[in-house]
């Protein structure tokens, strides 16, 4: 088990280093110059700017400086906003995190419930309905769901009834958080419910379920005490990829609902070619997801004894 933990931590660290190097070289390869903008800059100013941001040094020196800065937690100064990237992240990330966590909780809880219903009532209308919802959720991108929700529930519903149930944009108050969280969560919800249904059907056909049934246990006890606990395992493994999908999905959802989170800054920095901002945000997201994946894997190792066993066998 200790060996497994160290191995996972080592790989996460290696991935992180590769991500930092990758981001650095990508940013240097970018066409265009961050200082060539709206107005022409005199030669001497350009030289001074290059010196200030260390762009006049050789490549390997820049890379080492970059590594040093990143591991000290300094992501540089945004060229466009002229503010430390750390500051911007500190200010904007709580909004994104709030949105992401709401979507994550909603997606997992609702997805698991839908999956259980579909598996227990296999072949009935409930099954068809929840699987229909699941396939719609997988097939309709978040930005479309977001735009449609905003149009019908924020704009049209207010026009028809005269009461503003949901505000059009923003992140103030509970009502404003419902539509963006729902739009963001839909595709993950679909993934979770499909996975839960398959896993649940797998478990329900096992012998120990038959034993429980022949013991005379009630359907409720079998489903909740015997089946769900075992069927929930695969869902834990997709929590990592799902948090990645939610974070990147938030780029567009935040733009649609004008939420002042990281997504808005990220998309804007792409349009303005703000090197330090893009690399800083990328690294922050990358590191966040790598750590999230690591935690999920470790949690899985603790929860599921079979992971330990397979490691011993190796």
């Amino acid at each position, binding site marked *: 088990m200790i060996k497994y933990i160290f191995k996972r931590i080592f790989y996460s660290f290696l991935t992180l280093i*590769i991500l930092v190097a990758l981001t650095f070289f*990508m940013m240097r390869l970018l*066409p265009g110059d961050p200082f060539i903008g709206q107005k022409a800059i005199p030669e001497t100013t350009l030289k001074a700017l290059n010196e200030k941001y260390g762009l006049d040094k050789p490549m390997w020196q820049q890379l080492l400086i970059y590594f040093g800065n990143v591991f000290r937690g300094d992501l540089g100064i945004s060229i466009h906003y002229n503010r430390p990237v750390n500051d911007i992240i500190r200010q904007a990330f709580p909004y994104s995190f709030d949105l992401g966590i709401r979507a994550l909780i909603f997606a997992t809880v609702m997805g698991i419930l839908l999956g259980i219903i579909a598996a227990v009532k296999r072949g009935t209308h409930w099954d068809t309905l929840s699987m229909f919802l699941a396939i719609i959720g*997988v*097939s309709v991108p978040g930005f479309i769901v977001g735009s449609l929700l905003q149009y019908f529930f924020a704009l049209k519903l207010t026009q028809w009834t005269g009461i503003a149930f949901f505000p059009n944009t923003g992140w103030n108050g509970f009502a404003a958080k419902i539509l963006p969280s729902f739009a963001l969560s839909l595709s993950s919800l679909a993934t979770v419910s499909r996975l839960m249904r398959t896993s649940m059907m797998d478990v329900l056909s096992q012998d120990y379920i038959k034993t429980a049934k022949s013991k005379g246990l009630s359907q409720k006890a079998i489903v909740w005490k015997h089946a769900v606990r075992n069927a929930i395992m695969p869902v834990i493994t997709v929590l990592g990829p799902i948090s990645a999908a939610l974070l990147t999905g938030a780029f567009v959802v935040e733009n649609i609902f004008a939420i002042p989170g990281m997504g808005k800054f990220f998309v804007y920095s792409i349009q303005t070619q703000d090197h330090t901002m893009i690399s800083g945000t990328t690294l922050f997201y*990358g590191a966040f*997801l790598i750590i999230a994946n690591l935690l999920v894997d470790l949690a899985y190792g603790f929860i599921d004894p079979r992971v330990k066993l397979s490691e011993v066998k190796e």
Partner: protein
Amino acid sequence: MDSKIKHIDKSQFERIGLDKSDIKTVSGQNTSYWKDAFRRLSMNKAAIAALVIIIIITLFSIFVPAFSPYTISEQHLGHTYAPLGFRDPTDGHMHLFGTDSLGRDIFTRVWYGGRISLFISFSAVLINFIIGIIYGGISGYAGGVVDNIMMRIIEIINGIPYLIIVILLMMVLPAGTMTMVIAYATVGWTGMARLVRGQIMSLKEQDYVVAAKVMGARPARIITKHLLPNTLSVVIVNITLSIPSAIFTEAFLSYIGLGVPVPLASWGTLANEGSRVFQMYPSQLIIPAICISLTMLSFNLLGDGLRDALDPRLRK
């Protein structure tokens, strides 16, 4: 004893012959694996409907831009934001899906966008398929240290969220259709490689592969003749199911402003343009949105249908 046997006359026997109808009832018709799979698929109404929709969308994307009276960048500034089914009484211009902010015909643009979106996703998935099958084939067949190293590389690539790599690549490379393909294919192949490796690993222990090895078949022959054909069904299902994710990636990148450059149009860029005027002219977003969703839905349904048809373990 002997004399008794000789007494039995030949005329007492009657030749029955071969009754063809009996054979049919006993053994049924001979079917190959693929014929059987096709029969199963054709019984799945949702999958067939999905297949028909995919064919229709593909044909429209190929032929509508070629035969349309308008080009994708032709502007009719006299009637911008024309509604659905608009017909100009003065010059007889007909716009089935209306026009956009510059008076460009949306019907033409939507199907041209379909061309680009489908081209990007089909070619990206094709490249993923080729890389994945080679990488996964080598890794699975070689095993041991080679397999270990190759899988660690995949693990590291997968550790970084793919959309972030794609965004970085899209920024470095010049904007264009091929860039999208390259960006997606750079990271998209890992899933296919993992799948092929897993299949090959389990197949190479099978008796018929061992037999081929004993008879002296070279690894290249074993891989191409014995192993790959048997992974085909799983690979086909995976290809079908990865097309929607390629379409989604294309739409997502276009939506955040990293799509194909301006005179061109893809479903993603159309949705992006439409979303800016969405509250006034909802049809401008809804039409590309329906195209994206319907195509993704159809491929998902077809993929599910194919999985049910091709996987022997799911048969009842």
